[in-house]
Every structure is written in structure tokens, then in C-alpha cells.
């Protein structure tokens, strides 16, 4: 009887622990764009790298890169850099969005706005 009770309590604790881990993982999903900085001014004649760090969380799988809301590439590395294509002059929004295995954005993204001159 005591053995059964201990087993049930252990199962409950494991379940709660797993649930807590899942919740923590969901909260940790994030995108950090390290470079360029938000509000930075970029030279239109130079090549620029988007340096990012992603924690996909339980729903995410990989990321898509967007320039002005138009998808430009798929990245499977989660902590890396991406050489941006030539940017048109003016204000540009660069975004990295976490997507699931079906390529659907899961609602976790990071964006910076830059001015290209």
C-alpha cells in the first residue's frame, strides 16, 4: 500500500516536473538580433551580416528571415550569422521568425529597423 502511494507520488512529481519543464521551455523561446543594432545606419554598398541567437522553444524548429515582411531565406542554425542580400536604400525592417516543422511562424520573432544609405 505504502509502495503504491510512493509510486503514485513519484509519478505525480515527474508529471509536474515535465510540465514545469515544458512551461519553462515555452517561456524561454526567443530571438535575439545581435547585429545590426536597432536604429543602425548601414552603407548600401557594403555587405552586412545579421547576427542572431534563437531559442526555438517547444513549438519552434528553425527560423525564416524577412526583409520588410518578405521572406528571404530559411536558416536552420540557431546561433549564427546570415549575410544579407543587397538592401535598397531607405528604412528597412529585418526580422527573424521562429517557425515550426511545417514552416508556420509560431509567434516568436525578433526585428530591428535599420536605415540604408
Amino acid at each position, binding site marked *: 500500500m505504502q509502495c503504491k502511494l510512493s509510486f503514485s507520488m513519484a509519478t505525480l512529481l515527474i508529471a509536474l516536473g515535465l510540465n514545469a519543464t515544458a512551461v519553462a521551455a515555452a517561456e524561454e523561446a526567443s530571438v535575439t538580433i545581435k547585429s545590426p543594432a536597432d536604429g543602425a545606419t548601414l552603407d548600401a554598398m557594403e555587405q552586412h551580416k545579421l547576427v542572431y541567437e534563437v531559442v526555438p522553444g*517547444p*513549438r519552434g524548429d528553425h527560423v525564416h528571415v524577412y526583409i520588410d515582411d*518578405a*521572406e528571404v531565406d530559411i536558416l536552420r542554425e540557431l546561433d549564427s550569422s546570415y549575410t544579407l542580400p543587397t538592401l535598397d536604400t531607405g528604412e528597412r525592417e529585418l526580422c527573424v521568425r521562429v*517557425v515550426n*516543422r*511545417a*514552416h*508556420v*511562424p509560431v509567434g516568436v520573432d525578433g526585428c530591428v529597423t535599420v536605415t540604408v544609405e
Partner: protein
Amino acid sequence: MLAENLSYALVQVLHNFGAAGVIAVPLFALATGQAWMEQRRRLLWLALLAWLVQSLSGSGFGAVSYSFYERLPDLTGVALVALGIKITSTLIAIALTIVALRTRTQHSAAFYRHSWQTLAGLGILALTAAAFLRWFS
């Protein structure tokens, strides 16, 4: 999370079996020479079922995505072209099988062979496009 993964997995199961069917049925017909009328009709029904499963399960991926995130997958460039090829192949194959099923006229063996070859070709095209859709989106 479990519901989402389970939904995608079940749709994937249907899609995989549909994929097997769209290739296996015409290849079986070609390999056996689909000698007599009734066997040919049964195989055509099977081919039609496989293509319908493909189209419905393909739409199912979009439906699952929409139900969980209220948006469809983000597809561009090569992936979008691949999806277009898959849809076009499916529509042609379904139309071809329906026409073949409605035709009661007896044709030459060469005619049937070409029809099955076309269906096999459409299946190969759709499955090849699927790989590009999977990895280029």
C-alpha cells in the same frame, strides 16, 4: 503541443500512404500488364483514391497549421513552385483517372500503357516536388 504534433502526424500518415499509392498503383499496372478490364478498373479506382488522399491530406497540413496558428505556412521561391507542381500534378492525375473510369470503350494495349506511364510520371513528379517543398521552405 501534443494535439498539434498528433494532428500533423496523422495528416502525415495519410499523406505518406497516398504517396505510396500514387506511385505503386501505376507501376503495378505496368508491371502486370493490367490484362483484363475489371482489374484495370479496380486499379484506376485505387489510383483515384490515392490521389484524392494526397490532395485532402495535403490540404490537411494547411488546415492544421491554420487551426493552431491562424495562418498558413510561409512558402516562397522554390517551395512555392514545388507546391504549384504538386497541385497541378494532382489535378491532372485526378482528371485523367476520372476520364479513364468513365470511358467504357476498349482501347489498344499501347493506349493503356501510355495512360499508366503518364500516371506514374505524375506521381514521380509530385513526390519529387514534395522533397523540394519540404527542404526549400
